[in-house]
């Protein structure tokens, strides 16, 4: 996988099912019957990974929900996206570099 940037667009893999409960998310990857528990930011990242919006747009959407500075939020979201992609929960569908975002 190429490195993740603010321009990367992810979607949830088709075999991922999840439930949000009291801020957390329980994620089940069907093909492997793996179960993960994600915290609130991780759960939000799953919600937002629709194959349409870039990581930058996720951060913009989340900035109103979390009382943290933009730099920390961006770092956390990028880290979560990387972990979820590594775990096979997300797949990259595009990278909207500066030209396509312009």
């Amino acid at each position, binding site marked *: 996988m190429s490195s993740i940037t603010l321009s990367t667009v992810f979607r949830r893999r088709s*075999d991922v*099912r*999840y*439930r949000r*409960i*009291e801020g*957390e*998310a*329980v994620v*089940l990857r*069907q*093909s492997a*019957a793996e*179960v*993960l*528990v994600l915290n609130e930011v991780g759960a939000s990242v799953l919600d937002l990974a629709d194959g349409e919006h870039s990581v930058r747009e996720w951060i913009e959407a989340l900035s109103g929900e979390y009382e943290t500075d933009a730099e920390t939020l961006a770092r956390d979201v990028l880290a979560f996206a990387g972990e979820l992609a590594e775990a096979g929960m997300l797949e990259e569908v595009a990278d909207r570099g500066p030209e396509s975002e312009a």
Partner: protein
Amino acid sequence: MSFGDGFLRFPDLFPGRRGGEPWGERSLVLDVAGGPYRVAGLAAAQEEAVRRKFDGLCRAAGTAAAVAIQVFRAPAADFLERDVRGWEYMLDMEHSRSSVLLAGMRLMARLDWAPGLTGGLWTCEAAGEEWASIFENYFRVLAAYRLLGAGGAVLHSAGVSDGTSAWLLLGPSGAGKSTSSRLCLERGASVLSDDLNAVLPAAGAPRLVRLPFAGDLAGPPGGPPSYPLKAVLRLVKGTEDRLRPISPAAALAGLVAAAPFVNHDPWRHEALLGTLERLARSVPAYELVFSLGGGLWDILRAIPA
């Protein structure tokens, strides 16, 4: 490897529907959670072996049943011989919206929904313990699907009771289900099973239901078949005894991981998540670190309702 390759000589000839030559005309009804289940097409020796294995749970053949299982002959040549030294028992499964196919040691089987659940089992085993084990291995899967359809679940777990309520102890292999069951047993608890238990919805608290797949420590069948479930506990071995509440999400994750067979079926994942989410929300859940010191049972009984 394709479905059935590890067990069947001709996987492409897997029965496409529930039909074939029955072993005989005997039948019986098993009064097990999610049932009753009628098992038909049995030879006399097969019926006798099932009755022996499920002693106390067999009802007259005329008893009304919710699920019908038909048993058929299959030639021994249809099955591959395997070296079972060091082999951990497993089934090969293929899932679809309306059926589940199973292949295993000297068995082919189907679950079909049309729309109610029916079962078909093909084997070359005519009698005895080998046959009874084949039937039980299939019946475990069928019961797990049947209970999911009834809003419940079969769970790899230990179930312990004080005769009034029950506690469900979860954890992966090696987490201490049998050890904790033994500790409770030594302090006067009864063990429903230290292997597989069922949970079914009920007014008030969900109920922990005894299954005849009892593991090593369960007492003989008898007594109330189910108890109100007081708590779900995720087991961790330690050097002290400690109880810590866990979130409903953490409880749900533990429950999903403990739901055999159905947690590998992508067509039933939404139903499984929904069912177990309701359970996780309705019963207190804890992480229980326990030692061999023996305080486990007292901790369980002190959990508030």
